[in-house]
Structures are given as structure tokens and as C-alpha cells.
């Protein structure tokens, strides 16, 4: 009764549909917003149905509340850290006249007691209003973030997809030819991929493909010719990690008794591999997706800087040099929310996929 919690009529077609949407964005096909909304609504409805059907409502609710609390704590801690810092952003070499300083502090509500500021901030956060930037005068933080978020999300999603697309087959291949030359070759590639810094790969690729062959663009984010190199640089590193993981996991599963049984009853190697080994050895890949996404976020800072992609990472780096505290706060929050949401999704998917997991609510 517990096996196969994920409804096959629901899961795979939906995954393929989302994949199609992502590929469409890669080729800059414009997708009307109602498609996005209906896809999201259908997914949510399906997830809700599964939750009820398998009695996971309490578990899902608990994880949701936990995630909300995590975000609230991160928001409060970051706010307080940045607010109690000595030496505000308006301290310059030349001391400002006290009236001007007072006026500035009044404008940004820095003259009020800390508790009031904190209350205002949290109320604003719930309403999606993060206040005004110190550097870009008159611009709201939420506006800046909303503008730069799409590029970052696109880059991250493409890189993640590329990582699975390369990493899983290569990992399986290496395990299939365990201790023979394809295994050695692939694992040598993988460990190089894990070790190589993006600011070594990216320059070499740019010199070859942008300045040499002229195929791709070396900077900005404006179409497939701009997407390929950053995605490659960010995704291959993650792919190397995934390949190592899949290889180890497949080698582990191959040792299991049910594989020996399968072989004994005469199943073909490919049936064994795809139907029995692969399904079970991909569970670690799913659980590892949280740290993997965290790694991709970290990598994206450098990649956005190298390729001058106008994303959130670039804004965070700039906001630090500008001492634009509201923007630092905003970017920190966006990244944390992305990671928390991804971890939540991974946990829930894991609970759906692996019937052995005990939901200790």
C-alpha cells in the first residue's frame, strides 16, 4: 500500500511540462503569464491531493511552519545585526551638518527606537515592502530585487538541470564500468570539475568561444548566446559532484540482495539497471539537492560577476561596497528564502518518493 506514493499519472507528465517551460525560456520563447499561473496552480493542487491522500497533512504543515519560522528568525537576526552596527552608512569623511543628518535619519526612520524600527520592518516584510535603498535614491528594495531575480533564477535552474543531465548518466556509466577505464576517466574528470575554480574555466572558455570563435557573448544576459557559457561554468561543477554521488550510490545499491535475486531470475542487465538499481540509487541525489542548490547559489556570485549578469548576486556584492544596508538585507533574505524553500521541497519530495521514511510528526 505504501509503495509508489507518487501518482505516476500526475508526477512525470507534470515534470515534463515544467521542463518544457524551462527549455522555452532558454530559447527566449515568450510564455503568457496565465500558462505559468495554471502550471503552478495545477502543481499545487496535485501536491495537496497527494498530501491528503497519504495522510501527510500534519507533516507538511509542520515543515511549512518550521520554514516560516526559519525565515522570520533569519530576517530578524540580519535586521538587528545590520541596524546595531557602529558607523552608519551616512558617515563620510566630512562630517555632515547635524540638521542634514537628522533629516536623513528621519527619512529612513532611523531616529525611532529600535523596537519600532523592527516592528515596521517586519510589517513591511509581510507586505513585501523592504524600504528604500540608501544608494539608488527613491527606489524600493523590492523593486530592485524583482528586477534582478529572473536572471539569477534562470541561471540557477539551467545550471541545476545541466548538473542532473550530465551528472546522473556519467555517474551510472562510471559505476557500470567500475574500475575499468571509463570509470577512471570519468572520475578523473569529476574530481577536476570539483577542484577547478570558475575564474579559471570561465576565462579560458571566453577566450576560445567569445574572442576566438565568436559563437557566444562574454557578458550580460540577453538570449541563448549569453546563457550557454555561464550555465556551463556553473552547472558542470555541480555535475561533477552529482556524478561522484551517483557512482557511489549505484555501487552501494548493486550490492543489495534484491539485485542478486533479480539477476538470478534472469533479468537483463538493462532492466536491472533502469528498473531496480537506478530508482533506488537516485534517492541520495534527491536528498543531496539541498546542499547542491546552496552550492549553486554560492557559485552564482562569482559567475554573475565574471559574466556581468545583472542578477541578485551582483547586487549583493555592489550593496556591500556601497554600504547599502537595506539592499544587503533584501538580498540576504531572497537567497535565504530560496534555499529554505528548496530544502522544504526536497524534504517533501523525499517523503513522497521514499516509502521507507518514517514521518515523525
Amino acid at each position: 500500500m505504501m509503495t509508489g506514493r507518487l501518482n505516476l499519472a500526475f508526477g512525470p507528465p507534470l515534470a515534463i511540462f515544467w521542463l518544457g517551460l524551462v527549455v522555452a525560456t532558454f530559447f527566449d520563447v515568450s510564455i503568457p503569464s496565465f500558462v505559468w499561473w495554471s502550471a503552478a496552480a495545477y502543481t499545487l493542487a496535485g501536491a495537496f491531493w497527494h498530501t491528503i491522500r497519504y495522510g501527510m497533512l500534519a507533516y507538511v504543515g509542520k515543515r511549512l511552519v518550521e520554514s516560516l519560522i526559519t525565515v522570520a528568525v533569519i530576517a530578524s537576526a540580519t535586521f538587528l545585526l545590520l541596524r546595531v552596527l557602529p558607523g552608519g552608512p551616512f558617515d563620510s569623511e566630512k562630517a555632515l551638518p547635524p540638521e542634514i543628518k537628522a533629516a536623513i535619519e528621519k527619512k529612513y526612520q532611523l531616529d525611532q527606537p529600535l523596537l519600532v524600527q523592527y516592528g515596521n520592518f517586519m510589517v513591511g516584510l509581510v507586505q513585501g515592502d523592504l524600504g528604500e535603498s540608501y544608494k539608488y535614491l527613491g527606489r524600493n528594495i523590492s523593486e530592485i530585487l524583482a528586477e534582478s531575480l529572473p536572471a539569477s533564477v534562470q541561471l540557477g535552474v539551467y545550471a541545476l538541470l545541466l548538473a542532473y543531465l550530465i551528472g546522473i548518466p556519467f555517474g551510472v556509466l562510471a559505476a557500470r564500468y567500475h574500475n575499468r577505464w571509463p570509470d577512471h576517466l570519468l572520475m578523473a574528470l569529476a574530481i577536476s570539475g570539483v577542484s577547478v575554480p570558475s575564474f579559471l574555466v570561465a576565462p579560458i572558455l571566453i577566450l576560445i568561444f567569445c574572442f576566438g570563435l565568436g559563437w557566444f557573448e562574454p557578458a550580460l544576459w540577453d538570449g541563448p548566446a549569453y546563457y550557454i557559457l555561464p550555465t556551463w561554468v556553473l552547472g558542470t561543477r555541480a555535475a561533477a559532484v552529482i556524478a561522484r554521488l551517483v557512482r557511489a550510490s549505484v555501487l552501494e545499491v548493486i550490492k543489495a540482495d534484491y539485485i542478486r535475486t533479480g539477476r538470478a531470475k534472469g533479468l537483463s542487465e538493462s532492466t536491472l539497471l533502469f528498473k531496480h538499481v537506478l530508482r533506488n540509487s537516485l534517492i541520495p541525489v534527491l536528498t543531496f539537492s539541498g546542499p547542491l542548490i546552496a552550492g549553486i547559489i554560492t557559485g552564482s556570485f562569482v559567475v554573475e560577476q565574471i559574466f556581468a549578469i545583472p542578477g541578485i548576486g551582483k547586487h549583493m556584492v555592489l550593496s556591500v561596497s556601497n554600504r547599502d544596508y537595506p539592499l544587503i538585507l533584501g538580498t540576504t533574505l531572497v537567497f535565504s528564502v530560496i534555499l529554505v524553500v528548496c530544502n522544504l521541497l526536497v524534504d517533501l519530495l523525499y517523503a513522497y518518493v521514499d516509502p521507507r521514511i518514517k514521518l515523525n510528526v
Partner: protein
Amino acid sequence: MSSRALKGHSLWYGGWLRLKRNKVAVFSGIYICILCLIALFAYQISPYAFDEQYMDRILESPNLVHWLGTDSLGRDMLSRLIHGARMSMAVGIITAIISLIVGASYGAVAGWIGGRVDAIMMRFVDLLYSVPTLVLLILVKVVFDSMPLFTNPELKALTGMLLALSVVGWVTLARMVRGQVLQVKQLTYVESARALGASGGRIVLRHIFPNILGPIIVVLTFQIPSNILYESFLSFLGLGLQPPFSSWGVLANEGWRSLRSYPHLIISPGLALFTAMLAFNLLGDGLRDAFDPQSR
């Protein structure tokens, strides 16, 4: 096992034998030792001073006088690379040691006491895990930089870097040590030690710690390259160490600006970082296979 196994030897000796047979790991270890020596004797080895400018020899390609060329201020790249090794290795190793001390004590306390204390202590660790590493690094740097602590800007940048990397690094060790302590705590020799009346601190230090040292060393070997990489990331983004300080990340940041015309300026620090990371990762894999057989 060969006939040597008959002699009977400690767990450590067995691990050492397994490690010695792994040629790749041995070569990586030798390479890392050489890097450490270069880092230690940077001033004696480097052909020029790392911050001396030769204004008549700006942006030279690699040649016989300057083996790796010169940068836009006429500084010798090889010397800067050697001093970069000094800084990168120092940052990587020092922060790994700080993370070890803080993380291991935290994890050991949480794992040993268990129960509610453990739950609360680990909640905090989980919270730090919910912030992406580089974001946390940047936040710690921002907070530290705005404190009026040091007058010497170079010392301040270095301390900030060490602090930020340690704040990020201890979490991994705390989680790992806690998990190990929780496991080992159940074993019979711990029970016997307790029955003999040994205090909690003594049991953890004398009985549990030596038995989980293998996995700890393995995690540390992976911690050092990740610290070096984060340092270079931060410096590359212009948020870490600043010139005239030289680390591989600082050099990459400087080299990046003239990529099209003078690619040697970014390729050489990139290659240095790549080979060092590769050596650490290969050595770590070897150590894991040799000393931590369960996780193979």
C-alpha cells in the same frame, strides 16, 4: 591483506599502509607538503619582492627575467603567486583549525548531553545552514568591517577573513562530530568507562575522541580546500583581501580586468588554485578510503 597483517598492528598503522598503497594520494600529499614549504619560505624563495614595482617592465608576458610575466604595476607575477600561496594556505589551514576547535567542542557537547540541549544547539546550527555560505561570509565580513577594531587595514582585512571563514566552517564539523558522538556513545566501551566512574569530560576526550579522529581528519582535509576556495571567491569579488596583499583570489581579481590582452595574469593564479584544490581533494579521498572505511 598481506603477511604484514599477521604481525598485528593498530588501526592507524593499517590505515597508513592502505594510504601508502594509493599512489595518487601520496603524490597529492607530497605536492601539498611542497606548497606548505613554499608558503613558509615565501620570502626566501621568491625572486623579487611581492610588492616591488618595476615601472619599466609593465605587463610583460612570461620571459626569462620574469618567469610568469609582470602585472599592470610592473610587479613580478611569480613572486606574487608565491606570496599568494602563503596567504591562501595560511587562511585555509588556520580557519580549519579554528573550525575544528569550535565545531568539535560544540558538537561533542551537544551529542554527549543529548536531549533538549542537543535539540536547541542543533537548531542553531540548522539555522546557519539555511543561509547560503557565501551570503553568510559576506554578512560576517560586513559586520566585522564596520567595527572599529583594528587601525592597521591589512590586519583588519585578514582577521575579518579568518573570522568569517571560521563562522562558516565550524558548522560542518559540529554536525559531523555530534553525529559521531551520538553513535559511539552507545558502544560498550563507553558504558564500561562510565561504570568505572569516569567523568563525562574524560570519556569524551580520552575514549570517544580518539575513536572518531579518523572521520574528523577526513573532514578537515576537505575543509582546508573549501576555505581556500571561499577566500579566493571573496577576494575575487573584491570583498576579501585587498592588494597589495597577495592571495590567489586577489591575483585572479586583478588579472580578470585585462583578460583579453593579458590572459597570463588570470591563468597562472587560476592554475595554482586548481592544482592545490585537486591535491587536497585527492588526498582527502585517499584518507577517507584509508581511515574511514565505513563511508566508502
